[in-house]
């Protein structure tokens, strides 16, 4: 479970200070499916990056599984990301010279897991995302949808509690998009918290809880209303 308290994130752009996040409070319960929408520059990516511990707030506290992670050092943040958060990017960010299996193995490799164990785990995960026959294919030998499924496999291989998807279908055609969304929704049904940042209202609508941002502030949040 994650809780943001009074989070502010400012950027200096020229002479101006832009408030990308302006006193944001947010609580995410385990297993929630949240979509974040809003116009460009509304702060939705910043929110995602703060939740993913890729960015640090200027002000406020971030509670991750009961611990304050807003003041951790660089190494500790890396460990937290590794253990608790899975990322899915619009551009996939697969390593082109590694096979699908090796890409999925990467988080385990960085964590120092023994070879045999991580190979088994990566196989199992690729099987679960429907790529059991593509283990040895490099990214350039896979379709866009398949690439994103490898990336999803990599995101969940460490069994994180939270899956963060930033425009996960931005580079995909509509059929692959549907496949990918269904896949991450399936993962959500199995218990992982899912947060999707998207421009696409059709995708945004599918979530159980809808948050919209404007100028760094949460303007609507039906999850909070329903409580």
């Amino acid at each position, binding site marked *: 479970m994650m809780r943001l308290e009074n989070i502010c994130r400012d950027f200096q752009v020229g002479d101006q200070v832009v408030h990308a996040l302006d006193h944001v409070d947010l609580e995410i319960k385990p297993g929630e499916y949240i979509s974040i929408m809003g116009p460009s520059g509304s702060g939705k990516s910043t929110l995602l*990056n703060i939740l*993913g511990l*890729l*960015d640090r707030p200027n002000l406020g506290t971030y509670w991750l599984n009961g611990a304050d992670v807003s003041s951790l050092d*660089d*190494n500790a943040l*890396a*460990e937290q*990301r*590794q*253990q608790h958060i899975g*990322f899915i*990017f619009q*551009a996939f*960010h697969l*390593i*082109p*010279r*590694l096979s699908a299996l090796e890409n999925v193995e*990467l*988080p385990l*490799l*960085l*964590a*120092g897991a*023994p*070879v045999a164990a991580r190979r088994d785990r990566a196989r199992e995960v690729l099987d679960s995302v429907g790529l059991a026959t593509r283990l040895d294919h490099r990214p350039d030998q896979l379709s866009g949808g398949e690439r994103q499924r490898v990336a999803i496999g*990599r995101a969940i291989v*460490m069994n994180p509690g939270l899956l963060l998807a930033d425009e996960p279908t931005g580079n995909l055609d509509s059929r692959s998009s549907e496949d990918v969304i269904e896949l991450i929704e399936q993962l959500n049904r199995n218990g992982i918290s899912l947060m999707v940042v998207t421009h696409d209202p059709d995708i945004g609508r599918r979530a159980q809880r809808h948050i919209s941002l404007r100028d760094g502030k949460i303007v609507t949040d039906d999850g909070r209303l329903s409580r």
Partner: protein
Amino acid sequence: MLLRDVIRFTAQSVLAQRMRSALTALGLGIGVTAVVLLTSIGAGINLYIVEQFTQFGTNTIAVQPGKASTFGISAGVLNSVRPLSLQDAEALKRAPYVLHSVPAVSGAASVKARGRERTVNVFAVGPQFDQAFKFHVSRGSFLPNDDLERPRAVAVLGARVYSELYGSANPLNDRIRIGGDRYRVVGVMEPKGDMLGIDLDDTVYIPAASGLALFNREGLHEIDILYDERAPVDEVIAGIKRILLARHGGEDFTIIDQQQMLDVLGSIIGVLTFGIAVLGGISLLVGGVGIFTIMTIAVRERTPEIGLLRAIGAKRRHILQLFLGEAVLLAGLGGIAGLLVGLGIVAVVHLTIPAMPAQIAPVYVVLAETIAVIIGLIAGVLPAHRAAALEPLEALRTE
């Protein structure tokens, strides 16, 4: 992160850009090849010269006329200097530990025998020359133990002189002319080879006194002393000095022991080898710059990858390891390739031009590879550090 995974990951990165990696490694490889070749030639020359100087044993001392403060070979004789005489050579036999004292004068002269003529080296030496330097006669005997001042006019032929003048006929007791004077052949030497370019087989040996007359000289070029190898050199030299001082009244001679000669030569060759190594080092440095350049480019190209690795849990230290590893791997591969090429060339030179002194210097070989790896480390530090310092978010966003 496990070490084998670091190695595997960096190897995959290097292999992904085969052409580029090969060219980068080549840069350093050429440097290593240069070091191997240059030092091999240096070591070869060293060995060649030491062999040349020690082939007659290391327990010899040369006494030359004139006082020299350096150990050059004195060419002429100064006026104020008393020449080294045959009596000096005789007297030195009584110096402590001295086994043989051999007077020597050398030059060139034409030799006529059986209607043939040949210009050869002439060594006018004392009768113990063969024992002192372990030369052996194949026929007859060496110069007889005559009166030093008035020896009989006899000559011993070097192996080549003999075969050129006589073919395989018996030369003993034959009359020959050396520089116009008549000599009787008493012996033929076994083949001996070269010493510093002088063909010892293309040489005729005559008594020292005859040589002084032949070359119109008052004094000897040199007195060669062979001493007991168990004796301390300093005491041998002191004994020689004492006798000559008493005879000459002043120090107008130079005593050169083999070790001094080797030391001087060794230090010259050492400087030479060092200079050569520096030249090789410069080419290694150029190779290092190549690795630095490629690593800088690699970090820029793979910035999004660095961002991704950081997002999925890589620490800065991991990024540093991966990029440093890549630089070291490139350098190491280049180093090994350069070593193999260098050793290959040395081997080919050995086979094709046996006379060319090239000796593999293992110390420099190991050193070259070590330096290659260290250069890789140094060249990689800055780019790898830059990679590790990237903020994950910034790196991810870079296109």
